[in-house]
């Protein structure tokens, strides 16, 4: 492919709000540009993980190269770079965007612009991408394409009058999109004779080839045998293979040169060496400086993951190891809990990332897990000058040793129809939000800006937002900084024994309310025992809330005769089986799901 002229390459991505039809449009583009017969088309080619398909979201960015025979008679190479569509993966999105020269903005003709649309499109504009809009789902009865066009022009400020009106689902207007890609997205620049400078925007671990690095070559060229160096991590390796992305397969080629998007392998054993955002250069003829924008991935949300069956600890370790091969943003380290035994403290980009990992562990690795309450990283300033980054509430030093604590704050933008402004502001208030301002977006909608403590939004903020706006609000955030906060550790005592896995950090003002709800929730979750069980919430040794699980008075089978024995035995077996899946704390048996009770505190 080295002969391909730069002028006939188009590197682009599609940005959209979730559900606005990004993946479907990608499928149509791939279909119309050939290289793949209809028979080969899976329902959604880009989303090839089972889990992603079920959730309707794209987790791991993937990329495909297709060839388009344009109306001008020329053949164009399209590199369609897929971007994950969730705020947890903002950094990955930004690196994928940096690999593009332009973007297609997909807007739902019925829904219009949403907070996430804005966030993504601003991100694209920040990367100097040429963005052109397409209006999707025009065949819906509720479609209002003219209204959406005006909205795009008013809110985003990009030309939208000649935006293709399409239905990705029904294949309407796709040809127009393909021509727009040729004409509205610029060809890449860069000189193949300069020293190598390539951006890593994703990677994948393959047990035969090692890490497969997804990159966009900005300057220079790379081929088999090139000795490369990752500028941030310092890792070096000899390139074994370069190539481009067929649909669902890797197709080797001679070399990748400036402007091209493709992959390289170099027998790299660990994705940590090929961090997203890092710059690949020629170790023997390095470029002067790395590409801008590299950040070390930072976990935002932490929780403990424990095998439900303690004997499965090694299996959990192996599974995490394997997942990390493909997901450098997953962090884990061993920890132990009095209540739960051996497990891992794991760090995630956000709550969605946590859920995805948890589900993959359970589904792909067949593990039964107990997850402790997710928390954020707190900074604990000790009186002796030491600063601790606290990820596990159990490690909080004694209050006498703490000078003060800080918690992470995010900038949040919430797009909402005007009728719900009141209830959403109320929600933000409850979550200790600091109001920054509001912008009206044409007549009926507003963009609310708040600063919110991260620990107030990690559990259920999104759900609360949806339920208080009848599903209309959308939300985006990014980390701002750390701020001083009055934080306390809330401990839970069951039958007067502190259960470390149930402790969490909470703002002093919400401690009572949270403690009370936690006790209520646990009362529902803990089955009755032969004795009465007090459940208490305490802060600094002082009990602030209490519930009681009453003693069991009756558990007896009135009848058991010859014909009944098998059935009655099955009842007893079920009872025993249920007990086995519980955790023994002192002489109380606690079901696994009780440990996740804190997650459900606000589902009123």
């Amino acid at each position, binding site marked *: 492919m080295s002969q391909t002229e730069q002028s006939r390459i188009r590197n682009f991505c599609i940005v959209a709000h979730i559900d606005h039809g990004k993946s479907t449009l990608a499928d149509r583009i791939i279909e119309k540009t050939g290289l793949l017969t209809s028979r080969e088309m899976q329902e959604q080619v880009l989303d090839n993980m089972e889990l992603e398909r079920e959730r309707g979201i794209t987790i791991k960015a993937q990329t495909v190269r297709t060839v388009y025979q344009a109306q001008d008679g020329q053949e164009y190479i399209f590199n369609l770079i897929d971007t994950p569509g969730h705020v947890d993966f903002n950094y990955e999105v930004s690196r994928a965007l940096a690999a593009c020269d332009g973007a297609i903005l997909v807007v739902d003709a019925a829904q219009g612009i949403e907070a996430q649309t804005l966030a993504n499109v601003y991100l694209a504009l920040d990367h100097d991408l040429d963005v052109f809009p397409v209006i999707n789902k025009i065949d819906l009865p509720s479609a209002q394409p003219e209204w959406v066009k005006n909205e795009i022009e008013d809110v985003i400020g990009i030309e939208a009058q000649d935006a293709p009106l399409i239905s990705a689902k029904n294949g309407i207007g796709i040809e127009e999109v393909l021509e727009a890609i040729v004409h509205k997205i610029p060809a890449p620049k860069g000189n193949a004779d300069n020293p190598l400078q390539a951006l890593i925007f994703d990677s994948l671990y393959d047990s035969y080839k090692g890490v497969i690095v997804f990159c966009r070559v900005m300057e220079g060229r790379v081929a088999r045998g090139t000795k490369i160096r990752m500028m941030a991590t310092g890792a070096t390796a000899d390139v074994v293979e370069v190539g481009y992305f067929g649909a669902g397969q890797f197709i080797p080629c001679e070399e990748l040169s400036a402007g091209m998007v493709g992959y390289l392998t170099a027998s790299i054993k660990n994705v940590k060496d090929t961090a997203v955002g890092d710059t690949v250069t020629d170790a023997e003829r390095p470029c002067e400086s790395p590409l801008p924008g590299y950040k070390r991935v930072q976990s935002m949300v932490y929780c403990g993951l424990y095998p439900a069956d303690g004997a499965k600890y090694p299996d959990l370790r192996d599974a995490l190891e394997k997942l990390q091969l493909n997901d450098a943003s997953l962090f884990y380290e061993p920890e132990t809990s009095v209540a739960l035994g051996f497990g891992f403290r794991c760090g995630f980009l956000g709550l969605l990332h946590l859920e995805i990992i948890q589900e993959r562990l359970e589904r792909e690795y067949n593990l039964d897990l107990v997850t402790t309450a997710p928390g954020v990283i707190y900074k604990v300033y000790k009186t002796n000058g030491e600063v601790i980054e606290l990820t596990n509430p159990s490690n909080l030093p004694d209050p006498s040793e703490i000078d003060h604590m800080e918690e992470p704050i995010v900038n949040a933008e919430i797009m909402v129809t005007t009728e719900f402004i009141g209830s959403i502001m109320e929600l933000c208030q409850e979550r200790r939000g600091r109001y920054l301002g509001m912008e009206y977006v044409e007549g009926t909608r507003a963009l609310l800006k708040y600063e919110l403590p991260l620990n107030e939004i990690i559990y259920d903020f999104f759900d609360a937002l949806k339920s208080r706006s009848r599903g209309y609000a959308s939300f985006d955030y990014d980390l701002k900084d750390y701020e001083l906060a009055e934080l306390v550790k809330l401990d839970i005592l069951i039958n007067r024994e502190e259960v470390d896995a149930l402790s969490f950090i909470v703002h002093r003002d919400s401690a009572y309310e949270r403690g009370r709800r936690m006790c209520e929730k646990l009362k529902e979750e803990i089955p009755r025992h*032969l004795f009465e069980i007090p459940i208490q919430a305490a802060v600094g040794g002082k009990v602030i809330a209490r519930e009681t699980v009453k003693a*069991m*008075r*009756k*558990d*007896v*089978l*009135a*009848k*058991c*005769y*010859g*014909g009944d*024995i*098998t059935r009655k*035995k099955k*009842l*007893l*077996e079920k*009872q*025993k089986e249920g*007990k086995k899946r519980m955790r023994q704390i002192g002489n109380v048996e606690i079901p696994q799901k009780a440990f996740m009770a804190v997650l459900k505190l606000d589902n009123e």
Partner: protein
Amino acid sequence: MHIPFCVRKCVYCDFLSGPASDALRRDYLEALRRELACEARHYRAYEVETVFFGGGTPSILEAQELTELLAQLCSHYRIAGETEITLEANPGTLTPDKLACLRRAGINRLSIGLQSADDKELRLLGRIHTYAEFLQTYRWAREAGFDNINIDLISGLPGQTPADWRDTLEKVLRLHPEHISAYSLIVEEGTPLHRHLGEYPALPDEECDRQMYQETKRMLAVQGYERYEISNYARAGFACRHNRIYWQRGKRHTADYAGFGLGASSTVGSLRWKNTDDMARYLSLCGAGDTAALREEREALSERELMAEFMILGLRMMRGISEKEFCDTFGREPDAVYGAVLEKYEKCGLLARGGGRIFLTDAGIDVSNVVFADFLPD
């Protein structure tokens, strides 16, 4: 012997039973007779100690039909001299003549389903009779010469108060039956009661339920009834021999039982099975003489399972299990097998020992499932 027919199903009943046409009844009895004949060869070595006609409402059958069944049994099986032969009966299905016939045919124990002595409660349960009708049946039975009668009662009915229950007990005690079974109501899934529970008066709470249970024991003890199993009370010498065979597991084949009829269960040595509960299949297999194919849900109980049943079923009886019998049966002391479990529950007062036996305490009875579950193999 299972007679899966009744006049009408009660709202709490989850047994395999229902109303049937005369034709079906005839076909069923014919099939049952064939099953008895075909299966006899497996039981040549046995002497039958007890016979139990259970249901359903076996008393719904004509005296003639029951007599023929017994005759069939006697012609194919060895019957001991002192065999206990029980018929489950409901008021409204018996007449003086019929009772006299049954007594003559050899039935020597009646188990009458009364459930409550309160007509309001009887209606609520969907019973087909009133208390007065029961009284009449009971007197006829005595007149026919039945001198071993059980009365079935249910406590913990929707809306029932301890006083209501006491009233039922008092009325029944005046009759001096030899045996009383007093069950605490179980709302079984799949029953109309379970489906429409919300439409019934509230069930007594657990505290109330246990109060009624304790009351039963106290009131019956005063009148000379001994509680010998969780729900069973008898005057001296009248404990049900048949049911004790179920509870008192022991050495190989001493406690075997053979069930005949639709859905009937059998346990022979360590083997257990249940007949098909598909009526059409039952009729056709018996008709074809292929009674071996009736057996479903076959299981071979392991040593551990046999031990667990020995404990669980034995502990249902107030005198509990004999440590020596356990040892004689399995060649090991109960402590060698269940040491930790026994110690745990003795410590918290749910189990006790005495006279070489292990038994549930009063507190243990109330939560016996918790104790029993721990005897099951992992």
